[in-house]
């Protein structure tokens, strides 16, 4: 019977390796066709949350059924066999724990605090039911992707471990994102797999499904001599020595291996099998938590955000859905930021409101949107960023218009030819549109010291500007560029327009998101 633990270990090593490989392959030069978001597609919480907010199940997310349906029969196998965060927690718990038996019994007993994960799940699902997708904040897969992409890998780069950019990537608020993961990992020092036992909403969802599982860990009460070796080895606080809590069991199979009398097995019930315990949940508390969440949703929306008012700095990646739909789909996983070749995609803090925390924004001070790149939409697992073709992005036939992210504006008080009488046409040179959105007028002026200077003074033609931000990025005025892009004119919005510009005919009509 112990053989299953060996298989579980092989699975854990395989899926951890696969997770690492897909992270590695997520670098834009290696991307090819690898499903870098595979773990997110397998994630039932991502699928359920997205389904509740958008009432659709984006194609890849159907893979989550491969986890959900077997869980109904087999229990929470995902947590110890596949989940990269669960596996890392398990390995660290093993390394951290050198306790005496009696301490381990105490530590591994089920505690009421482990209900918290179910309450968190309720909160997240109520949020999703009301259209606010916050599952990604605590979903372990989104969390671990985000932490690796936006914090740990850049840190490794910086420490000299090689990089996906020639220079280490930088991410807005990356330390906070990485700090959350480190706290989760360090918590294993106090309690084995504390995150999985107490906080993980995906674990809660799978535990809830596991209630009905037929195959479980079973204890033969006649064979059991109450040595509690199983309890000592248990990763899930499932009380294997008593009435087993199979909603908490991660199917690590350690208990079976630890049992000296072969009293434990995984499978169907035998005539002498112990009974199990139902889900430990206080219905009244569930209702309270759900009500609190119902109140909290409008509160999170009462702040100024691009959902209600166009916000200049909230420039979303090309192909992004209109803001409300975007927020209803983005799970804050950071995959788009991982593949972006210029590092322009950055996680928002509160720029896009509370709901937009850690969603992707373009920060042109860091990078710019490469004219022929469409990678972010290709990897986004939820189609918050719709997959575009290069032709659609740049407006090549059969498309008639390029995708616009915003519009560039000159700050004439900072622009070298406008304000300092210094020749410069960097923005015009780098502008990738054809014809260029930046044009200039040649003027001959006399400077304050009497010199005759010929200058090319630049202008933006807004209907040609796609808001790629390369001009802002390359502008030699360093701290705050003399040309900056704001979100106005973005293709995805029907409202974020320069209203008095209607006569120039560049106001688009309705938005076709392409998602039906």
């Amino acid at each position: 019977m112990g053989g299953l633990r060996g298989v579980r270990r092989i699975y854990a090593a395989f899926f951890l390796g696969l997770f690492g490989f897909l992270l590695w392959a997520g670098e834009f030069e290696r991307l090819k066709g690898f499903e870098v978001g595979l773990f997110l597609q397998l994630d039932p919480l991502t699928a359920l949350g997205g389904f509740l907010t958008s009432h659709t199940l984006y194609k890849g997310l159907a893979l989550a059924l491969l986890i959900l349906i077997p869980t109904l029969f087999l229990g929470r196998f995902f947590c110890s066999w596949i989940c990269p965060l669960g596996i890392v927690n398990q390995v660290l718990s093993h390394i951290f724990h050198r306790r005496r038996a009696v301490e381990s019994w105490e530590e591994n007993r089920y505690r009421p605090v482990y209900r918290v994960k179910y309450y968190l799940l309720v909160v997240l699902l109520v949020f999703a039911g009301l259209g606010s997708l916050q599952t990604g904040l605590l979903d372990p897969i989104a969390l671990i992707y985000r932490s690796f992409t936006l914090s740990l890998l850049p840190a490794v780069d910086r420490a000299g471990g090689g990089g996906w950019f020639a220079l280490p990537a930088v991410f807005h608020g990356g330390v906070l994102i990485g700090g959350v993961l480190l706290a989760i990992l360090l918590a294993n020092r106090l309690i084995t797999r504390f995150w999985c036992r107490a906080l993980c909403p995906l674990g809660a969802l799978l535990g809830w499904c596991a209630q009905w599982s037929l195959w479980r860990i079973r204890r033969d009460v006649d064979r059991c001599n109450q040595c509690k070796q199983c309890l000592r080895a248990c990763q899930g606080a499932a009380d294997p020595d008593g009435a087993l809590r199979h909603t908490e069991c991660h199917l690590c199979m350690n208990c079976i291996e630890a049992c000296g009398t072969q009293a434990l097995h995984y499978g169907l019930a035998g005539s002498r099998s112990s009974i199990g315990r139902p889900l430990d949940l206080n219905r009244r508390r569930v209702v309270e938590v759900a009500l609190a969440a119902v109140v909290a949703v409008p509160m999170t929306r009462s702040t100024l955000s691009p959902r209600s008012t166009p916000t200049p700095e909230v420039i979303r990646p090309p192909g992004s859905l209109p803001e409300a739909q975007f927020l209803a789909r983005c799970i804050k996983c950071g995959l788009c930021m991982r593949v972006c070749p210029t590092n322009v995609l950055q996680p928002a803090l509160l720029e896009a409101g509370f709901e937009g925390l850690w969603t992707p924004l373009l920060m042109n001070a860091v990078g710019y949107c490469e004219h022929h790149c469409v990678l972010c939409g290709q990897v986004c697992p939820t189609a918050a960023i719709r997959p575009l073709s290069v032709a659609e992005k740049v407006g090549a036939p059969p498309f008639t218009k390029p995708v616009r992210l915003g519009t560039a504006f000159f700050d004439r008080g900072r622009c070298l030819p406008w304000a300092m009488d210094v020749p410069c046409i960097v923005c015009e040179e780098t502008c990738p549109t054809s014809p260029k959105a930046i044009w200039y007028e040649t003027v001959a002026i006399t400077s304050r010291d009497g010199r005759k200077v010929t200058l090319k003074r630049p202008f933006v033609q807004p209907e040609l500007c796609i808001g790629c931000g390369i001009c802002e990025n390359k502008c030699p005025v360093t701290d705050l560029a003399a040309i900056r892009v704001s979100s106005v004119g973005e293709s995805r919005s029907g409202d974020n327009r320069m209203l008095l510009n209607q006569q120039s005919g560049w106001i688009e009509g309705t938005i076709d998101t392409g998602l039906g």
Partner: protein
Amino acid sequence: MAGIRGATRQESVGVGRARVGLLALLPLIAWGVYWEGQRYDPGLLDFKNAAARLSPLVALFPERAEGLARLGETRRFDRESLHEYVNGHAEFFISAGFKELVVGEYGLPQEASRPKVVVDLYDMGKPLFAFGVLTGEGGDGGPEAGVGEMGFAESRGLRFISGPYYVKMTAFDEGAPLKAMGQALVKAMGQAGVAKAQGFRFPEFGKPLATRFIKENYRGLDFFDQVVERSFQRGDQTIQAFQVMGSEARNLELESKLLAFLKGEEIPVERLEKEGLVLFQVQDPYEGEWFFLRTQEQVIGAFGIPLDAAWTPLKEFVNRGQTQHDEPRS
């Protein structure tokens, strides 16, 4: 107990099968991931920024130069995409033989988004074409750069040629080490730079004003290609001298085509022999009087200057030999 032991045996068999099944699943998953990875549209990954790494020119861009680090990846532009970088001006390069451009940015690593120097390296295919764009882009003004085979320093930049490469460096910072960086680049070019630009000397017809390179159809003549034209100021006159460098056979062919054309147009041409040189003087109703002569290495001529006035510098030029290296401002 017998039943339980029996059940255990059955379960053992079941677990054994499950183990095999589960383990067999892993290679299938691995294969599926690999297979999916190989199915992709290369066009989606083929954006210009990444493609730069495929260019051998990238090796010429050092990681560090004069205390500055290369920021990010180099960018590459080809004939199709050049307009993205120099729109409005791309045709100028393309018509002059442009093959590819690689752009690298240098600055301080801690200010990754703020380059101090941008280096544009144009592969023009031939030294002559590189020369053409050097002189054609902004004329041959500015003090001599002392970098490469020929170059000019400008207020915030440096342009030079080395072999078939035309390099344009733009500084965003006072005191950026352009010259030293340019020299490092020439060094990195190694053998490539050794193929010297051919001599672009001209007879000293006056004060040089501008030089340009015309790749095809000089003066509308479809056989008159790869011409270097330099204009001179002489008193209040402007003289336009041209030369084409090629093999003896090519020069001969050009000469005979020119003569055939002039004959066909019934434009009077007089063959003159003067101090051992053979010249053709043309009485052109449209262009006025002009002349040309052929040497082993070139065909050279001038518009806007009577042969008498042109004779001394022309003679000196031919005597000095045509293979010498040009000085930037002749």
